[in-house]
């Protein structure tokens, strides 16, 4: 069991070194990335705002962090590349709302559950032209990547 504060939507990297979860910070659902087992919190460059955050997932070595964020009146999937600092957005058509996402550990595909016309649907997106693969046994990111939270 991890701490006594409210924590939801856990997601582990491929071999369990990184844990993403959603916690309340200032009354807003905020993505938290921690190294395991120390619990050290690692700063994410592109998830400082746009709360509420939800539905995090991580690639094999924790290089890619994906989650839903709020941008204007839309829920939007974001993927942060912790190795390069790059940000990838996945805009969706206005007639559908993203509800949950799942990033494949290798970073090749993203599954998005959307609500459209009163029905849930799952759609897959090809990320192979966007992300380098993050494969098991690949180079593990050291420390906090682009900056470690105090």
């Amino acid at each position: 069991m991890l701490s006594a504060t409210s924590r939801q939507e856990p997601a582990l990297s491929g071999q369990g070194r990184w844990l993403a979860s959603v916690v309340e910070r200032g009354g807003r659902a905020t993505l938290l990335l921690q190294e395991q087992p120390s619990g050290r919190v690692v700063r994410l460059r592109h998830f400082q705002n746009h709360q509420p955050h939800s539905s995090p997932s991580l690639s094999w070595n924790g290089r890619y962090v994906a989650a839903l964020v709020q941008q204007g009146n839309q829920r939007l999937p974001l993927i942060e590349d912790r190795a390069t600092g790059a940000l990838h957005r996945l805009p969706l058509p206005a007639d559908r709302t993203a509800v949950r996402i799942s990033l494949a550990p290798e970073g090749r595909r993203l599954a998005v559950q959307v609500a459209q016309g009163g029905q849930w649907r799952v759609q897959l997106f090809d990320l192979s032209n966007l992300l380098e693969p993050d494969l098991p046994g690949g180079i593990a990111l050291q420390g906090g990547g682009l900056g470690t939270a105090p």
Partner: protein
Amino acid sequence: MRLLVPACVLGLLLTGCLGPVPMPIGPLNGRIEALGANRDPALSGRWLALISGRGGREQVLLLDLDRQQPVPVPGLNRADAQPVSVSVDAAGERIALVRQLEGRTELVLYRRSLQSLQPIAMVPSGVPRQVQLQADGRQLAVQVSRGGLWQVDLVQIP
């Protein structure tokens, strides 16, 4: 196909203007769509686990994305159980499932090669809500309701 052409054209236009963008995987999405109303997707390796509903009943499906078709998961689904959350490892061997059954919410681990279902107890006691199986299949992260709080348990799998 009528839907695919505009999507491709749009993708090419965006690619030219803004750099690469994620592209919908048309044929696969068509097959997933044909399964019914789907939710709670979980990707790992070449596998997609999801909760799929048709005719008022939901069940867990495991799709082999390379072969673009569901694979059998005998013993995983029960007609009297309501799936809540599902996750699969990268080998497609282990599936973690939170389900409601006979008024209780429970976490179970399914091993596909053995067709076995093993209950995972929450210690201390709590009600599981969401589960994620790490890609190597060796550990579970579980969102648990306990004492009025949402908590996260990490559970090693032998």
